[in-house]
């Protein structure tokens, strides 16, 4: 335990994300204003120059993510933040970051959609877009905080995962968390584990930029160090050169997919409560999980054996965890603020071992524990 006193602050989710990013070493931010994420860039505009970092307001979200990826190529830890419509605009360049294996953190403060939708109110309807929004194959990592504290902690984790796996990592916040104020403990820099991307150990003339060892993640050279790396969004060989050779393409896509899938056990995290004797398990994530836990506690007081699973990692989906729980309970209730997204993943993971129920609330208002309790009573009667 560290002797130095930790700083306690009272922050909104958006500001906690900035605190986490800076602690993780983020020194570049490019963004474009959009509700409800704008406070992230406002706070970055204020703080980054003070620590010698770079802030730029770009002309749109396409430019924002492009600039952030460019900055990451020079070795800086870079981030952008946006909300639904802006996240859609970023998708093509997220694809480039996957293909060129560039570490980057993207915060998507989810709001109601489609289109302009509900700019000031929350939703959780970008779960599938996060994973499948870019064209083509490839994996991303996505983390969903449920508290202001987790906004900070998971942003640090997002940077670590981005650096370790050389991939875009998405923090899925929402309009409720963005502006919710809670007490946050800001860790001391020395007690945080920081992961930096692997750098080449070989001299430039021997360096093969996309040749990976058994970790499947190749070391990354920094622009301007003489490694003369060619990055392209085209299918490329180990040297980074474009090729449309089918075998080469298959190997490339298999590797960039496997580097996430094979490490899924290491990447995923979740929290459970009252699982041991549960007959029904509530599954939720993000701000919705707060009401889910509250209703779970209430239900137990009323004599219902209800358990609770909060998904912290959304992508890769913690399917083993869900499957294991499904083997011991008869019913699951998925709670999310959309017309049904994670519920499909849960159904797939349970392989029919448990009955999966779904309760959604769309309209931007948070779930109320009483509403969920009503569902619990309906299912368990």
């Amino acid at each position, binding site marked *: 335990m560290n002797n130095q006193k930790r700083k306690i602050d009272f922050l909104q989710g958006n500001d906690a994300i900035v605190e986490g990013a800076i602690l993780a070493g983020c020194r570049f931010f490019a963004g474009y204003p959009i509700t409800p994420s704008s406070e992230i860039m406002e706070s970055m505009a204020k703080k980054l120059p003070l620590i*010698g970092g770079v802030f730029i307001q770009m002309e749109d979200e396409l430019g924002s993510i492009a600039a952030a990826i*460019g900055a990451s190529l020079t070795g800086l830890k870079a981030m952008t933040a946006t909300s639904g419509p802006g996240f859609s605009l970023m998708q093509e360049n997220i694809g480039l970051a996957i293909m060129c294996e560039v570490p980057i953190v993207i915060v998507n403060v989810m709001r109601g959609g489609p289109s302009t939708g509900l700019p000031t109110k929350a939703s959780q309807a970008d779960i599938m877009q996060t994973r499948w929004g870019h064209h083509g194959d490839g994996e991303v990592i996505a983390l969903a905080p449920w508290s202001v504290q987790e906004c900070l902690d998971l942003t640090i984790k997002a940077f670590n995962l981005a650096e370790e796996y050389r991939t875009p990592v998405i923090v899925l916040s929402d309009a409720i968390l963005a502006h919710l104020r809670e007490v946050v403990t800001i860790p001391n820099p020395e007690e945080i584990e920081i992961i930096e991307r692997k750098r080449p150990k070989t001299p430039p003339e021997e360096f093969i930029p996309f040749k990976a060892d058994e970790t499947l993640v190749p070391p990354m050279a920094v622009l*301007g160090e003489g490694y003369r790396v060619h990055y392209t969004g*085209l299918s490329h060989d180990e040297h980074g*050169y*474009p090729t449309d050779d089918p075998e080469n393409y298959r190997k490339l896509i298999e590797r960039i997919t496997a580097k996430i899938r094979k490490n899924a056990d290491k990447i995923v995290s979740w929290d459970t409560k009252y699982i041991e004797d549960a007959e029904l398990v509530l599954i939720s994530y993000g701000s919705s999980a707060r009401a889910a836990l509250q209703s779970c506690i209430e239900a137990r007081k009323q004599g219902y054996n209800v358990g609770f699973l909060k998904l912290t990692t959304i992508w890769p989906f913690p399917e083993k965890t869900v499957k294991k729980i499904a083997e011991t309970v008869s019913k699951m209730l998925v709670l999310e603020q959309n017309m049904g997204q994670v519920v499909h993943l849960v159904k797939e993971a349970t392989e029919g071992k448990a009955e999966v129920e779904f309760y959604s609330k769309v309209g931007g208002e948070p779930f109320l524990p009483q509403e969920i309790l009503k569902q619990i009573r309906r299912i368990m009667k």
Partner: protein
Amino acid sequence: MKISPVRKYLREDRLPTIFCPGCGVGMIINATITALDQLKIDFKKTVMVSGIGCAGRIPGYIKVDSLHATHGRAIAYATGIKLANPELNVIVFTGDGDTGAIGISHFVHAARRNIDIKVICVNNLNYALTGGQFSPTTPKGAWTYTSPYGNIEGFFDLCELAVAAGASYVARWTVREIFSLVRSIKKAMKKKGFCFIEVISPCPTNFGRRNKMETSQELIRFFKEREISVKDAQGLSREEIRGKLIIGEFIDRELPEYTETYKELILVSQKRFKEPEKPGLAWIELEIRY
């Protein structure tokens, strides 16, 4: 046999290139490398960024750190690279589609910021890598696959746009004026600010062939017949310069450069403002400036 001094800067393991016979890109690569070589620019500290299209393939053949990015976004990627490490020489190769259509916003705003990026726009008058469709710079009346009855849209003057947006240095040449092009690139490399050099380049395969100009020579003659210098064009009415191809230096001026100003902002923020939220920052005057 005499070997071109350019050759040592090429990724020889990648030759031959994908470019068609008669394409102007080879001359532009040659001019760029010649200019950098003559200035003894450190290729290790040089990053080349490109978008999509024939011009997008240029950086992949040169021994530098390079990024072949998404369509239209090259200048935005370059903005991030330059800001993150202002020590790097950042050169962007774009095409007429990248610059004038899908990525026009990044082009205009990088010029407005006057960030120290050198953009070499290979304007081959059509979308060539996709098979020959009209672009914002395809001449009116031209036949392309998407203008099978003749192009009804006008030619976009990208240089005028760059000047209006605030670039430090703007020039247009055709591949005919290769020495002027080399001079312009050298000038741009020495300049601190956003530089835009448009090079009109022959595309016999997809533009010329379908407009009764089967060879590069015919295309170059087509350019030559329409060329008028910036100087000669001054004082002429819009009507008089209609259908002409204005070549030369459009602007060469000294303006504050973005990464330099940003360095200043860092110092100001650190020294003078613990909390940079007070209005009336005395180090920059409140003004509407073009």
